[in-house]
């Protein structure tokens, strides 16, 4: 059964390799992609069942024990994220089947499926890595694939956004690699567990080197996850991609950097007291910046997808802020918010994609009265907006509730105030849109357009249902996550 | 110690890097970059990493240069875009 830990990554990789070999005709690429993603979801579900009771799988690739070989570690944290990530992928791949083909030429379409699967493999690889260099390699896989699915859309703004993203993520990769080599220089280990044992002594002997390495790693992963001043690539990249690609990028890909930092911090860096003092505080300050400025930028946007992209900057801020107080309750909220935001933002981008697919409109001002034409889409969009703001009975409320509770418990009421304030700001840019969509008068009442095709609607509505379910009965998920958070913080 | 040869190649590398950064002619920069990569490969050979050196000579000096040449052939040769 332990083999599932490696199969989780190998299945999407194999699917990606199959597409150019077997998927050269028509709809085959789609079928390969969907089959692969379903298999991966099954695999992740089995892993979640195994690890939910707090027991972690440690897989030794090639049967070489650490510190010599590469170790994979799947615990409740990574299994939970893997399961939801692949579940969201099912919806996005199903949505793509109708949305993407008419935007792409056949060769680009083939690679679109392949790159989507590579992105998933990279994300799952990051979630299960227990070795610094292995983490770096999978970070590169997902970053390149993320740029790739932006640039498959052959437009000038997509190409430019992809290039900007690629160059900045190369800078980030350089910082990460330099950080890894500094850590290796003073410890001689790459495996998390061995680093954790070696680090307390080393941090006493080489305090500045360790701090510099941590600063470089935090910069690198902060850039990859669009932490506030390093978020400049995100709005272009996420608004110019195809809608399903935006859903995956905004919902899942930016989270990989957060996951990597959480894991690194929890299993390695917490061994050094200086790092524990410096890093979370630093991240917390930047997170607050992201929550305030991201919201202000979001308010001024006129383009729907750009506004959603800035909203991602805000939500990333929540997750980092909740992480920075180092409290198990807040961390439970943060992990839950990773998944909740993935569901909500994925759904918002997909419903924006449906609106663009049917009407061709993407300016916020043009969306008045859109609910009369596409009520089901608008219901999904409304659930997403309510979740983003944190209205009770949606999943966004649950995670924000835990984050606020945790920050209060950690004795940081200021952080709680910032979370509430930023939610209020979210309401200011989401609700006018929703109200105009439901009650505004459509510009040309004569031309009624039907809803999108069912094959595009059900993924969106399914995600909406998932959001409501997680919002109404969060109990089982919270109990799994509480365990995961305690394991992460080592308490 | 790394010896005078080592120090000399480090100085050469830094000079090449600055030239690549400064010159406005992209083709010239590519050629200097190829020389830079070859000297880098030699430095790594001196640092007793022959596998890395042979890979850098093939990938860094060879393929990267070819990629740059092709890209320049299909775009433009100079950095100045007064036209």
């Amino acid at each position: 059964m332990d083999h599932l830990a490696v199969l989780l990554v190998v299945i999407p990789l194999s699917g990606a390799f199959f597409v150019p070999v077997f998927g050269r005709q028509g709809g085959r690429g789609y079928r390969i992609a969907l089959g692969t993603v379903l298999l991966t979801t099954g695999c992740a579900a089995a892993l979640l069942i195994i690890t939910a009771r707090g027991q972690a799988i440690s897989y030794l690739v090639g049967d070489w024990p650490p510190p010599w070989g590469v170790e994979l570690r799947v615990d409740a944290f990574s299994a939970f994220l893997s399961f939801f990530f692949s579940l969201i992928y099912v919806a996005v791949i199903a949505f793509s089947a109708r949305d993407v083909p008419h935007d792409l030429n056949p060769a680009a379409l083939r690679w679109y499926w392949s790159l989507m699967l590579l992105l998933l493999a990279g994300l799952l690889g990051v979630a299960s890595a227990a070795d610094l260099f292995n983490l770096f390699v999978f970070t590169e896989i997902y970053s390149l694939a993320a740029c790739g699915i932006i640039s498959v859309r052959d437009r000038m703004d997509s190409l430019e956004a992809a290039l900007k993203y690629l160059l900045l993520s190369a800078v980030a990769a350089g910082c990460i690699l330099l950080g890894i080599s500094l850590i290796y220089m003073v410890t001689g280990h790459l495996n998390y567990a061995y680093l954790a044992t070696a680090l307390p002594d080393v941090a006493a002997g080489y305090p500045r080197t360790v701090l510099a390495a941590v600063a470089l790693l935090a910069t690198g992963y902060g850039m990859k996850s669009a932490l506030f001043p390093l978020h400049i690539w995100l709005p272009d990249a996420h608004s110019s991609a195809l809608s399903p690609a935006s859903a995956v990028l905004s919902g899942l890909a930016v989270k990989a950097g957060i996951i990597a930092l959480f894991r690194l911090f929890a299993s390695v860096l917490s061994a050094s007291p200086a790092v524990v003092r410096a890093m979370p505080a630093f991240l917390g300050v930047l997170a607050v910046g992201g929550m305030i400025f991201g919201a202000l930028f979001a308010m001024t946007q006129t383009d729907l997808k750009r506004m959603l992209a800035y909203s991602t900057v805000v939500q990333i801020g929540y997750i980092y802020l909740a992480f920075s107080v180092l409290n198990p309750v807040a961390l439970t909220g943060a992990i839950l918010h990773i998944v909740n935001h993935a569901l909500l933002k994925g759904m918002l981008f997909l419903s924006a994609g449906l609106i663009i697919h049917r009407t061709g409109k993407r300016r916020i001002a043009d969306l008045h009265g859109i609910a009369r034409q596409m009520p089901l889409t608008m219901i999904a969009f409304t659930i997403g907006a309510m979740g983003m703001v944190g209205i009770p009975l949606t999943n966004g409320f649950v995670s924000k509730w835990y984050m606020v509770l945790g920050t209060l418990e950690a004795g940081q009421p200021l952080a709680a105030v910032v979370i509430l304030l930023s939610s209020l700001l979210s309401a200011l840019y989401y609700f006018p849109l929703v109200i105009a969509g439901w009650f505004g008068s459509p510009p040309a009442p004569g031309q009624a357009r039907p809803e999108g095709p069912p094959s595009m609607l059900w993924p969106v509505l399914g995600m909406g249902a998932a959001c409501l379910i997680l919002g109404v009965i969060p109990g089982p998920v919270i109990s799994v996550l509480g365990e995961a958070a305690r394991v992460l913080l080592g308490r | 110690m790394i010896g005078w040869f080592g120090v000399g190649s480090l100085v050469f590398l830094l000079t090449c890097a600055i030239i690549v950064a400064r010159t406005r002619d992209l083709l010239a920069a590519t050629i200097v970059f190829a020389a830079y990569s070859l000297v880098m490969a030699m430095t790594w050979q001196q640092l007793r990493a022959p596998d890395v050196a042979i890979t850098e000579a093939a990938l860094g000096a060879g393929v990267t240069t070819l990629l740059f040449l092709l890209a320049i052939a299909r775009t433009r040769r100079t950095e100045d875009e007064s036209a």
Partner: protein
Amino acid sequence: MISLDLFLRLNYLAGIMLFLIGLHTMLTHANLIKKVMGMNIMETGIFLFMVSIGYAHGTLSPIMRRGGPVQGLTYTNPLLAATVLTGIVIAVSTTAYALSLIVKLYEQCGTLDVDRLEKLRS
């Protein structure tokens, strides 16, 4: 504070300086191809740094002669060589992809200058 010891670490210093030169080129130059060159210099700087970490005076390259290692001699760190190899391949992949994006952008816009691209878009 920063001491003179830095000069006993000449190889590290060179690697870091190449990293910084590359980073500066990447961030300040407007030309896209030049940015990619800066990226390559930055990455080779890191690799030089890593290879230098693996080196130790008076050691051999980690390839054993027939009949096993010679007694009393040591070898350079093979793990760093392996990681640098991986890094080189990743760097080349990134370069290739970046250059194909640049060629395509040039086909569509006729410029390699980021400022002009910015103007064209708005």
